[in-house]
């Protein structure tokens, strides 16, 4: 049969040809639970961490920061234990990135105190002189929008009730606005007065960053 004179047949044939590799390397792995294993040690994001993650996406942070540590000696030395598939079970979308203009962040949780992040996010060069990271001071000037938090966690199947989501937000707000919050000074330094008793976008981003790579330590200890 001369397919070169039959456009529709040609199109169907092309579709079949391109679908072979697609089915084998993409669709079949999707049906295998081992591609994206789930571990009890890895917990979903709280509503505040998830809002922080969405702000991270909105800022395009993934254009400069990766979130996957490779199993290479110098990489493990620099960032910590290499990334495991279980860690990403709740990541929709994944944020592994493709270019490190800034360092990898998959193990950044707990590496610095919140106060460091407040200062660094607002004015990166004040903390790391030679950095080319853009300043994100405006994130501390925006009240965190939690109108969709219940809906978001429901879509993602995190299994929280509406009350739990509300409680997560209230708890985190209580934490960062408490007089005994360890990073209070740094937070007040970047947060306008009228927002100091509220949650800001920067609070949420920092909550997200502090979550990264924390659960995996329990996973490794558990194994």
């Amino acid at each position: 049969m001369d397919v070169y004179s039959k456009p529709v047949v040609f199109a169907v044939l092309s579709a079949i040809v391109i679908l072979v590799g697609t089915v084998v390397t993409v669709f079949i792995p999707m049906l295998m639970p081992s591609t994206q294993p789930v571990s009890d040690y890895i917990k979903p994001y709280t509503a505040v961490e998830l809002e922080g993650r969405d702000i991270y996406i909105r800022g395009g942070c993934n254009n400069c920061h990766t979130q996957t540590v490779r199993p290479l000696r110098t990489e493990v030395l620099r960032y910590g234990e290499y990334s495991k598939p279980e860690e990403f079970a709740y990541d929709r979308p994944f944020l592994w990135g493709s270019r490190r203009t800034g360092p990898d962040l998959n193990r950044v949780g707990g590496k610095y105190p919140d106060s460091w992040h407040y200062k660094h996010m607002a004015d990166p060069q004040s903390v790391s002189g030679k950095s080319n990271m853009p300043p994100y001071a405006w994130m501390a000037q925006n009240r965190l929008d939690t109108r969709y938090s219940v809906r978001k966690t429901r879509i993602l199947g995190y299994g929280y009730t509406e009350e739990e989501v509300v409680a997560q937000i209230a708890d985190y707000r209580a934490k960062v606005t408490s007089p005994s919050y360890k990073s209070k000074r740094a937070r007040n330094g970047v947060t306008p007065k009228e927002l100091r008793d509220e949650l800001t976008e920067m609070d949420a981003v920092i909550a997200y960053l502090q979550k990264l790579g924390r659960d995996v330590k329990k996973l490794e200890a558990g194994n």
Partner: protein
Amino acid sequence: MEGNGYDYQIVRGFTFSALFWLITGLVVGLWIALEMFNPALNLTPWLSFGRLRVVHTNGLGLGFGLAGIFAASYYMLQKLARTPLVFPGLAKVHLYLFNFIIALAALSLFAGMNTSKEYAELEWPLDIAVVIMWVIFAVNVFATLIRRQEKQMYVSLWYIIAMTVTIAVLYIVNNLEVPVNLFKSYPVYAGVNDANVQWWYGHNIVGFIFTVPILAMFYYFLPVSTGLPLFSHRLSIISFWSLIFAYLWTGAHHLMLTPLPEWIQTVGIAFSIFLIAPSWGSVVNGYYTLRGNWEQMRSNYLVKFFIVGITFYGLQTIQGPTQGLRTLTSFFHYTDWVIGHVHMGTMGWVTMTISAAFYYMIPKITGTGLYSIRLANVHFWLILVGQLIWTITMWVGGIQQGAMWKATDPDGSLTYNFLDSIASLYPYYKIRFAAGIVYFVGIILFAWNIFMTIRTSKNNP
């Protein structure tokens, strides 16, 4: 005008659109190139690097690239089918819808509405608009092909069909998402699967936008502008089927040494290496088409665009699979090396081929000669030199950063902290910006030349 009822308005419309988005995308590119060594330029959230980089890639890849492809496709389709477009009205809708989508895309990305998935950043309402636009294009492609007067479909048409089918599959599968509201959605895939789907898409959207339709142009415009028949029909058949078969297996070379299952990575490497063969099948076919007529490199200003362009394609398709090997990826990945790699393809191969296609088509449409061949030659040399300095600078910078990340002291500790590695790149970023200016001047001359050709033509309807 040849007066055979062919719709050239649509070709012209997409040509202008391509030039507009090309210049816009390059201005954004120059701005982010400056931001890389001058972070104070991140003046507002809208102008911060993380958002602008996406405007740059989408503006050039989808704005310039696709518009150029649509312009050339509508032209080749009518010529090779020897029949006018079946639905010229629909094509007009396509043109307006396309520009509307790209404008909204730019605005929404500026505003931070993005899905984070590279080259699929547009949020769901725009995704739906893109699919509608693609169907409109496909209807014209297939209707015109079915009604064609020429029995055999020439190679270029195979590539256009493959693009039309594959982009649809890629775009729909990778953009399946659950809306939160009008401006926000989450993908249906999680973690490793999302990564796998994304880079299957990411690799192939580049393949089926920056390779397949550009090859369609190469296979058509090189013979018609030189008057030389294609060297080998058989080689083009083998190249075509093996290229489109192998391409879809290789996305995982973007995910080497990540938590993606190792077998998918290994399959990705194997097929990437295999891809050198069909890629070079087209390169060789192009070179041999000129056999015995290489003086045209000097006498025919268009030929050097095609031949240098396909040479960059050849280099690109060797560099790509090589840097995907595990040993090399562990050194080069996440550095500027990859940025250099991409830009050799886009600034070299893609832009040179589209430029030459426009230089060929526009005078044919207007029925006059090109406004200035001399200007076209200056354009060629500026974009060649600009691109070479640009990409070589990024390769050197990438090697340096890769080496600094891996350097250890005799006691086994890291020699450099991360900040040292990025700060050492600022001189390269300055050279890159300068090279970008050279390239940009070349593109301005290109746009001016096309604009003046249309303006000075008597047949301007």
